């Protein structure tokens, strides 16, 4: 028989085995074996069920099957099951095992891109004065003092030969021309940026990536196009539009005095001028934080900071410019990736948001913290990219319609930028620091960007809480005959109320966190009932109000904050209020116990398990909601030993007529093919 034929034969055998196995699953078995003492009696020879129990425990605690050496230790008369469990409740396999239970529920990995315009540096290729191509970094919408290029690329079409703007595809080859040296020097500067220099914030940065900076974190890998120049040589410095290279923390509101488009656009400008907004006219010359979104659109004296540290590079100005390599999949955890892919700049921060959530969960279980902290904990862990994000990039996520209410920059962010460790640099991907308190509104995973972006609406956030942490589901009332309704209150509308009477008050907890975002709307500027947003004589609300307040719950006296109508009190309680209510509810502990027990037993719990669950819940609460105690109790329980209790003999088909064996003739085993009764 040749090798290929052998493989085909063995495949058939395995498929047959699985088929036979699925059939024997239906078989009834005799009463379960009596629970063995947790400490194996030295004199007794180990049975197949003993080995099976040990294999299950090893899989649950180490995340892999037992090795030959571990089996040998198990076979030793001195083997102590309790000691084995205790020893492995502190390993990485244990925390990974528990994290998996909650990651399966929460699925905290991103399918989102995130790019705040103020933080995204784009790149375009021009022809330099010497006729050679050259790259220039710029930001979309950057305000500039020069009218011809205000809000545009810093060199005019007359200087480059073509208009340059993001995502524009033109045939530039024919019309591009060398940029005059003076124009280039006036409009741009050379910078040693953070993604190339470890010491980018030094007076004269020297430690260049892959040159004198050879110990970069393994997870920090810029794409080749960022470290290699257009001439194929290593990049020493990058050319950046002058405004983007500014380092100041604060700028000033710019006004041009133009509120209408002139009959003729200045110079070679092809797009309309940026006109003075109402806000700019009112606040002319006032200071503005350069990290804010307002600074990009209202200040010509704000840039990306020292070493461009407030911005993230992209290798083009087309859709989805690339920036870094990182894995698409890490099925065994971040330390063991299975690939490394060239990724878009917009995926950089979402990648680290997911890692933050994972680090939080692994710490929660690894350090055996009070499980309620999954919702109530104000701490978190950040590395370099997250420090960059929380320290400056997230500030650029605000503010648009909020400026109409007087909020030009987040006043009460969910993660206070001042709490970011100062010593973390954007490329410190492998250095994680504990942040003991993110701020007064922090609430476990509920206020992490990963959670808020994954569950973008207030209702999605509320529903997840209800399901994952209270083990409850929404079941629609199908008995009522529905009639068309214009009732905006879903807690009252027939057919909706059965679910929404519960869901809307839960969703209200998230009314102060903008949907699809993590901008926090403080109570002082955004009261639940806001008279400023009343409807006018035509029944309309102004633009800023429509974005944040609900026209369906507005009248001529005011409007209700979006998602808050279910419970104004909950809206003011914020996600932290939800965390406390859920964590203190009686169902929280029982739900956690049920989820973990079910996972370890490998099946749904049934009414037969109620006494065990009640006892475990009581102990779980008594021991301060510590998972380690819970898991140890589960693993010592007879139910755990009997889990998947169709014993080896039974599911094999019962050739020895043992305790677990179903009656009937034993199936034929044939290693050369045919039915194997579940085994070779």
């Amino acid at each position, binding site marked *: 028989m040749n090798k290929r034929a052998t493989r085909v034969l063995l495949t058939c055998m395995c498929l047959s085995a699985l088929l036979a196995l699925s059939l024997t699953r239906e078989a*009834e078995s005799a009463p379960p074996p009596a629970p063995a003492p947790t400490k194996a009696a030295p004199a007794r020879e180990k049975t197949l069920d003993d080995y*099976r129990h040990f294999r299950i425990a090893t*899989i649950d605690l180490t995340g892999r099957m037992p090795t030959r050496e571990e089996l040998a230790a198990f076979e030793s008369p001195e083997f102590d099951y309790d000691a084995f469990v205790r020893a492995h409740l502190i390993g990485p396999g244990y925390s990974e095992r528990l994290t998996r239970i909650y*990651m399966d529920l929460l699925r905290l990995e991103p399918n989102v891109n995130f790019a705040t315009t103020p933080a995204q540096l784009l790149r375009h290729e021009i022809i330099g004065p010497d006729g050679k191509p050259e790259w220039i970094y710029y930001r979309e919408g950057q305000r500039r003092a020069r009218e011809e290029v205000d809000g545009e690329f810093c060199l005019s079409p007359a200087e480059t030969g073509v208009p340059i703007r993001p995502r524009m595809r033109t045939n530039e080859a024919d019309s591009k021309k060398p940029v005059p040296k003076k124009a280039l020097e006036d409009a741009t500067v050379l910078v040693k940026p953070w993604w190339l220099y470890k010491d980018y914030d030094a007076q004269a940065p020297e430690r260049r990536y892959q040159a004198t900076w050879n110990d970069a974190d393994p997870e920090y890998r810029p794409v080749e196009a960022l470290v290699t120049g257009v001439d194929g040589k290593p990049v020493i410095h990058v050319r950046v539009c002058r405004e983007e290279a500014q380092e100041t923390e604060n700028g000033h509101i710019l006004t041009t005095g133009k509120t209408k488009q002139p009959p003729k656009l200045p110079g070679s400008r092809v797009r309309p001028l940026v006109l003075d907004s109402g806000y700019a006219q009112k606040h002319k010359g006032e200071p503005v934080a350069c990290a804010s979104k307002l600074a990009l659109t209202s200040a010509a004296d704000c840039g990306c900071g020292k070493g461009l540290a407030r911005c993230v590079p992209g290798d083009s100005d087309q859709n989805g410019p690339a920036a870094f390599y990182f894995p698409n999949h890490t*099925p065994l955890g971040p330390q063991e990736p299975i690939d490394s892919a060239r990724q878009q700049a917009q995926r950089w921060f979402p990648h680290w948001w997911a890692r933050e959530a994972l680090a939080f969960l692994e710490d929660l279980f690894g350090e055996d913290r009070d499980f309620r902290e999954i919702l109530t904990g104000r701490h978190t862990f950040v590395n370099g990219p997250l420090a960059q994000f929380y320290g400056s990039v997230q500030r650029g996520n605000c503010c648009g319609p909020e400026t109409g209410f007087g909020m030009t920059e987040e006043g009460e962010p969910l993660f206070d930028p001042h709490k970011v460790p100062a010593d973390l640099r954007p490329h410190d991907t492998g250095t994680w620091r504990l942040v003991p308190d993110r701020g007064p509104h922090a609430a476990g995973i509920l206020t992490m960007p990963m959670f808020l972006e994954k569950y973008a609406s207030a209702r999605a956030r509320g529903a997840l809480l209800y399901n994952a942490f209270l083990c409850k589901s929404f079941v629609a009332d199908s008995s009522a005959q529905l009639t068309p309704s214009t009732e905006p209150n879903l807690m009252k509308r027939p057919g909706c109320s059965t679910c929404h009477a519960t869901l809307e008050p839960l969703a209200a907890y998230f009314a102060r966190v903008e949907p699809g975002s993590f901008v926090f709307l403080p109570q002082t500027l955004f009261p639940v009932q806001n008279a400023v947003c009343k409807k006018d004589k035509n029944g309309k609300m102004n633009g800023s109000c429509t974005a944040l307040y609900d026209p369906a719950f507005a009248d001529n006296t005011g409007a209700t904050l979006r998602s808050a109508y279910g419970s104004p009190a909950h809206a003011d309680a914020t996600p932290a209020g939800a965390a406390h209510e859920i964590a203190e509810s009686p169902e929280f502990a029982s739900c956690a116990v049920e989820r973990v027990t079910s996972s370890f037993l490998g099946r749904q719990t049934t009414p037969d398990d109620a006494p065990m669950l009640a006892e475990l819940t009581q102990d779980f609460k008594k021991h301060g909601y510590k998972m380690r105690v819970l898991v140890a109790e589960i693993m010592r329980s007879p139910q755990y030993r009997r889990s*998947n209790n169709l014993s080896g003999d039974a599911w094999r088909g019962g*050739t020895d007529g043992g305790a677990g064996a179903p009656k009937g003739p034993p199936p034929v085993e044939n*290693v050369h093919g045919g039915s194997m009764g579940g085994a070779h």
Partner: protein
Amino acid sequence: MSRASSASTLAFVIASALSVAPIGCAREIPLKVQAAQAADLVPQDTVLQDTSHKEPPRMVPPEVYMRTYLTLFGGLSPLDAQKKARGGDGGNVFDSWNDYIASLGFPDYHVDIPRQMQTNALMVATFERLGVALCDRAVEHDLKSKIPVPVASRVIFAFDVPKGSTLPEPEFLPRYDVLHRTFLGYPARLGPDGRSRRFYALYTEIVKDQASALKAGQKLRFAPEEEGWAAVCYALVRHPEFHLY
């Protein structure tokens, strides 16, 4: 048969049936209930009913499968194991983990795909491909290395394999036990009756076939006795008991 002819056949059958059937209803037979002396019911037998929950073994989580696989590969990282599994054969033996993670049943939280809790045909095929890669590379590492690998350092075949001969059953069994423990987690003696015998038959048949092929001038990657052990490895690494717990 056409619709018209089937209709006429049906009419004929009904008519025939009516012609032989008795006309009217059967005669009523009056029921007679005999009085008996009142007494307690006498228990006839006692049946013990086991109402405890029964569950068959479940699928090993894909994380556990992959981590075990890497451990069997010598404790390598996924990317190193991939490189080693591909060896000089490109994608003929092993493609890439990215090609396998979905079929192994891993969840994909990015797009909310839950983990697979049951096997399917594609998953079984993946188990086969990965298993064959593991066993082939293990033969290369443990048995074919230019510098012989000490038994203690062998990843799978932690026993000596005498060259050029088929082992007699008593010598086969302790070696088979090593593999049985490695993959299934218990000694071969606790396996079902006849399993060891069948594995020995498989081993001898493969060694014999490969020896014949070699004699016939066929070029083989492994020696016949190595092929025999590789076949035992293939069978165990894809065994349902390996994938369930």
